[in-house]
């Protein structure tokens, strides 16, 4: 046979994922078959298809489908009653052997496993070598001999693995993805590309999910839409709500905002490619929600679901106040928060929440508004008087140059942002010690002053450090807030 040399040809190993990242992509693509997918590094995936195989025509059909889909990667698919048996078949079964074992048939499982080499037990290298040197070359050799001598010589793990393989011991997998509370999905023979079509599908899925939620008197707190592209890539869109939600148009509005944001982002654009052939809506977290009178709303007239979903603004109550989809004003606020959180991210829509700290920058934090207020920790200390704290607080205190009459006295003059302010009135100091149980040891005591300059501008200044040798350096001045 002639052989040729092509000098310009570069060879790369193909067929197997060469990194955990690629394996994760494959795992994501396999979520179309079952939500319980676990990575088996370096080159395997384990799918728990119990309860899902019938959706694809049975286990054999599903195995054939997956093998065909990943044929370019040289994937070998095996189906068995335990992950260990499936792994052993996929890696060590000869090409002519059947790799799809019938469910619950222990004899068939034993017949399939016994010819396989002991390496299929996934033992450590030295144990596998020792087994081989003693003539125990196949799993059958091990399984058909007395256990005690083998366990005494090679360790208990040999039979632990064997029992797990044969289904005598439980061997759970660690799914890569959180199992959702409810899942609804739509499959299409051809990919769906158009955004309006996708939104129609999402609305239908949301209505279906709401039906499931209503049956259990629950509402969704976290939702996820996974869009599976024809070519195997997936896009996932997560949204969270500030209260249990069981309203399909509201759910669609949340996803619509998120999809809008994705479309504006060049890096994370929702690229349908040749289309999405599977769209799945999962309720990742559900909470109890009391049953409500559906249809008793304050809208002027009932409208079709799609028309209702397309309405961006909620209905208007008699007094002009906005009402949510369920006709309550507090729902309108929650709707707005959810929509904006989905659009810009939960960290962008905030609500002030007191914290158990006396340091000004920590005493009140801005927490995501989707977190219920009752979860925010109330401070145990009495709140400072209103006029003792500024209207605006700088995230990072800004250093200033200040002149004081006495070293530890109030400022007479200070320069901030290239402007000199002459202090005509002050109040203070209010001494705030660092929180030794939380701060680093080099944090210093602060003396706060409320000052007013000659133009009436009011500032909140502090001097960091005391003149009693608390710090190695001279105390420094900062401005931390502005009064009105």
């Amino acid at each position, binding site marked *: 046979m002639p052989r040729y040399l092509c000098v310009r040809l570069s060879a790369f190993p193909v067929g197997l994922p060469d990194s955990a990242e690629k394996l994760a992509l494959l795992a994501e693509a396999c979520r179309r078959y079952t939500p319980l997918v676990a990575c088996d590094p370096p080159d395997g995936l384990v799918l728990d298809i119990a309860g899902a195989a019938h959706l694809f025509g049975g286990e054999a059909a599903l195995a054939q489908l997956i093998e065909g889909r990943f044929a370019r990667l040289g994937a070998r698919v095996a189906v068995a009653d335990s992950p260990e048996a499936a792994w052993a078949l996929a890696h060590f079964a000869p090409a002519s052997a059947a790799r799809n074992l019938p469910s619950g048939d222990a004899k068939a499982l034993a017949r399939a496993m016994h010819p396989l080499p002991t390496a299929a037990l996934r033992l450590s290298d030295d144990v596998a070598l020792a087994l081989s040197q003693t003539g125990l070359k196949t799993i059958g050799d091990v399984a058909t001999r007395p256990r005690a001598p083998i366990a005494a010589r090679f360790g208990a793990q040999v039979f632990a693995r064997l029992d797990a393989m044969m289904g005598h011991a439980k061997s759970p997998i660690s799914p890569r993805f959180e199992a959702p509370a409810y899942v609804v999905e739509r499959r299409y023979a051809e990919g769906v590309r158009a955004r309006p079509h996708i939104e129609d599908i999402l609305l239908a899925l949301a209505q279906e999910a709401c039906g499931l939620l209503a049956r259990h008197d629950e509402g969704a707190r976290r939702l996820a839409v996974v869009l599976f592209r024809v070519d195997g890539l997936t896009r996932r869109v997560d949204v969270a709500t500030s209260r249990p939600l069981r309203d399909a148009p509201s759910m669609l509005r949340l996803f619509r905002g998120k999809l809008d944001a994705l479309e504006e982002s060049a890096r994370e654009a929702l690229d349908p490619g040749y289309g999405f052939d599977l769209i799945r809506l999962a309720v990742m977290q559900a909470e109890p929600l009391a049953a409500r009178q559906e249809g008793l709303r304050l809208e002027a007239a009932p409208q079709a679901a799609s028309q209702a979903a397309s309405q961006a603004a909620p209905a208007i109550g008699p007094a002009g106040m906005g009402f949510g989809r369920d006709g309550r004003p507090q729902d309108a*606020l929650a709707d707005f928060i959810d929509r904006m959180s989905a659009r810009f991210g939960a960290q962008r829509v905030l609500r002030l929440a007191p914290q158990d700290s006396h340091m000004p920058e920590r005493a009140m934090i801005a927490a995501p508004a989707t977190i219920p207020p009752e979860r925010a920790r109330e401070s145990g200390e009495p709140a400072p008087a209103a006029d003792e704290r500024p209207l605006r607080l700088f995230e990072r205190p800004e250093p200033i140059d200040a002149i004081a009459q006495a070293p530890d006295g109030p400022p007479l003059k200070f320069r901030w942002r290239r402007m000199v302010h002459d202090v005509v009135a002050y109040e203070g100091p209010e001494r705030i010690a660092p929180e030794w149980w939380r701060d680093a040891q080099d944090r210093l005591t602060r003396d706060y002053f409320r000052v007013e300059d000659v133009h009436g501008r009011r500032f909140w200044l502090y001097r960091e450090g005391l003149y009693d040798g608390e710090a190695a350096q001279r105390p420094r001045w900062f401005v931390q807030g502005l009064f009105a």
Partner: protein
Amino acid sequence: MSQGGGSERIGFLRAAIARIEAGGSIEKRPGLQGPGEAGAGAFGRVLAGGRGVFCEVAPAASHDRGAASGFALALAARCAREAGGPLLWVAEDFACVEWGVPCGPGLAAYGLAWRDLTLMRLPRRADVWLAMEEAIRARVFAAIVAEPAGLEGAEAPKILRRLAMGARAAGARMILLRPPAGERLPFLAPTPLRFEVAARPAPRPAAGRRPLPGQGAWRVRYAGPGGRLPQFGSDAFHEVDLSPVDLSPVDLSPVDFSPADFALRLAPAPTAALTEDFIGAALSLRPLVGLSGRAA
């Protein structure tokens, strides 16, 4: 017919607004006239919790941002009390970095609880406009305060006009806290209400007593739609001194004292002077509902 110093000041400002509108001392451009009622009428509607008003508040100078923020918040708090409902503060990230975020305990000086405020911090200016538009359409907030880091760009007037018309159509109350107005950055929105706010020094005590920083107080100037503000002091008739108490809608038993000693009475008040309870007990300011007709 004063019911208290606050009413005098508010009435003075309303009269000034009406004079500007009637006298034409400020150049008017009808083409840019904002939608809806303008001037004194609109101001009265803001104070009365009226709907569909777009206010533009600018600090007189960069360092007056604290005073302008306080004035905007006082207007918003007035709306919240009159109309009921939460407040929304939409700020661009850079504005928060530059001028700080609203401080929860400090809000109490305006009778606001921290629970009443929803804060949005957005990375881009376009996001601020989008959030404002969504907030207008939500119709759930008593007032919306927006704080972009700047208003550069040719599209800003169009956006603000759109927002002003949206607020008018949806009946929202919107307050735009903007950078200082200047020759290079004139007032932009075709809004019926524009204020330039400077800090006002607290009244000085008698000799021998140590001066203390005063409560929040502002020197407020008003400009008509499309007009340019004159320099400070050149046209003092539409300039008025206000404090948060002036914008308080409390209406209890009248206390008779003149505007002249109003500040003096306010200054030595206890630390809770500007809280809701103290206002109710010590000061009486009638709601300014209906004043628009009188000023006009």
